[in-house]
């Protein structure tokens, strides 16, 4: 198990939503966990367990009601809104279940987008985007718009986009949820390769215990609390899966 510096550090994270006064609905009741650099961790939970809320907090899309969250040394509590934008841009690579590619914009432009917001020059951008698309096996589809791509292809473009600014963590929310098992396998293999070959820190959020077994560590979330941490079976199955 890799044990580098601490990448994510969540301490006593609470999150409540107001559902009209005077009711307040607490979704997360004090979540604590740590992710180290180079780790491949999964967060498993049924729907309603609070994993989406947790993901939004990890992804700096939302702030916790209370608790401390440090991402790659940055204290999220104290960050202003536009600082959160920069944080999402530079430190987090999102992979969504529904791909969320920008419509009417070809693969290469989609991958360039985070770099554009980071203020990287045009030629450097397109060079890096090409390189990233080659890595996910999309070299021959770079000029295609999302509506000309299959689900698996779209997800590969989305992974390349997540890698654009070389983020501290990749945050994947049910990345295979909308794909058939064969394509899902292909996507998981890409994550494994990023993890093994480039030492990427990956947080996979899923409802599937089976998929979570493919990671190094499994954090189980139930009713807004962490119900347990266990080692995944990645070390065992690594040999048979590696291509």
């Amino acid at each position, binding site marked *: 198990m890799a044990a580098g510096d601490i990448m994510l550090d969540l301490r006593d994270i609470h999150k409540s939503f107001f559902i009209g006064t005077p009711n307040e609905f607490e979704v997360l009741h004090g979540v604590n966990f740590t992710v180290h650099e180079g780790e491949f961790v999964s967060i498993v939970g049924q729907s309603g367990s609070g994993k989406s809320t947790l993901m*939004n907090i990890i*992804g700096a*899309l*939302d702030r916790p009601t209370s608790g401390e969250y440090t991402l790659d040394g940055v204290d999220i509590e104290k960050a202003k*809104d*536009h600082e959160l*934008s*920069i944080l*999402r*841009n*530079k430190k987090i690579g*999102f992979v*969504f279940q529904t791909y*969320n*590619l*920008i*419509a*009417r*914009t070809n693969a290469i432009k989609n991958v360039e*987008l*985070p770099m*554009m*917001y*980071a*203020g990287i*020059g*045009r030629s450097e951008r397109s060079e890096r985007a090409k390189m990233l698309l080659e890595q996910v096996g999309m070299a021959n589809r770079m000029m295609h718009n999302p509506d000309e791509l299959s689900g698996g292809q779209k997800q590969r473009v989305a992974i390349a*986009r997540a890698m654009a*600014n070389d983020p501290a963590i990749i945050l994947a929310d049910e990345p295979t949820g909308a794909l058939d098992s064969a394509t899902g396998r292909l996507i998981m293999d890409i994550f494994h390769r990023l993890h093994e070959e480039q030492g990427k820190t990956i947080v996979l959020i899923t409802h599937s215990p089976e998929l979570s077994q493919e990671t190094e560590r499994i954090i189980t979330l139930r009713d807004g609390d962490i119900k347990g941490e266990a080692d995944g079976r990645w070390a065992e199955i690594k040999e048979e899966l590696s291509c």
Partner: protein
Amino acid sequence: MLITENILLALAGLKSNIMRSLLTMLGIIIGIASVIAIMTVGNSITVMVNTQMQEMGANNLTVGVSAKSTSEESTTSGLHFGAGNRRSMDTDDYITDDMLDTFLDEYADNIKYTLLSSTVGSGTAVDGDLYAYVNIVGYNQDYMDYTNLDLLAGRNFIEQDYENAQKVCIVSDYFVNNMFSGDTSSALGSAIEVSIDGKYYTYYIVGVYEYDSSTWFSDSTEDTTTDMYIPYDTARNQLHTMNEGYSSITLVTTIDTDSESFADTVESYFNTMFYSNNEDYEVTVTSMASMIESMTTMISTIELALAIIAGISLVVGGIGVMNIMLVSITERTKEIGTRKALGATNGSIRLQFITESVVICIMGGLIGIVLGVVLGSVAATYMGYSASVSISAIVVAVAFSMAIGIFFGYYPANKAAKLNPIDALRYE
């Protein structure tokens, strides 16, 4: 850098939904096109009127006798007709030859021509079956020099013609065509008889000038009335106004004279010298330059009023753009969420949508300018003016459509920028 990206993005967006883009732009197109068309027509008229009036003489001063405005009347300027119990103008009130001579001695350096004319009237020259319509005008020597007729045959008036009030005339080639089947040599020296209101006048033709049919108010038909020139004193003799003086004189100043300020000089000269004892009448001097100016001001005012009315349609167009921007933002909520997740700040989202709205408006503006110039030119040409496009109107139109884009794009863009990224991402 982000600006160019946003412009390209907006253009791609426009291209992907051409029909909607065109319909959105339509309001702006119509607004800008009508403003530009009106400005083009207005500009063409102004240029035309200016040229016409310049040709008539920018150095001309009209010296006329007019009713003195009393203090009560000065508030309702201009309309003196039927003004109370004022005595009507008498020949005693006219400018006399003595006054004129004194004045001309004083200001000889400033005056090139003193134009005196007297219209005998419009009538018909008849010779058997042949006839021609003429307008008989008497010109003094200065006036003939100033008019500088394009003589085709014969001669101009000579000094004896003026001094002795000879019954000679200069007619148009058009007149010769009608009366002498175009035979100029037989026309010269012939006597012709013209009847005006039952009175008959006889003149001898000494010259033939070329009738200029190119002026805007003329259209040559069989029955065109052309001018027949006679010496000034000949006309005054026939009208029995020989010693009456003048109710109005036109002065042509020299090139070096500032006609507008000279007009004031002339006015005060006449009024102090000759009219200080006249209780009812005085001399007013109008310069052609100031007339051109007031004419131009009048046209621009009308033009501006029309352009403002047309501009209202621009506001309607802008509201259309805002409406479509709001629809577009709702449709693209998820895209906005994704962009925010990828690191777009509120500012960059706002900039993206404002750019989009500005691009729509400027595209509409450009199409509108082309359309407006074409429409305006066609209209001006159809109305008989040579089309003259107003460059300033085009610059203003581009700036204005940009301003509309920013103004009507700001609210939707701000709404997009303030979307909560989580809600936007989850939006279906």
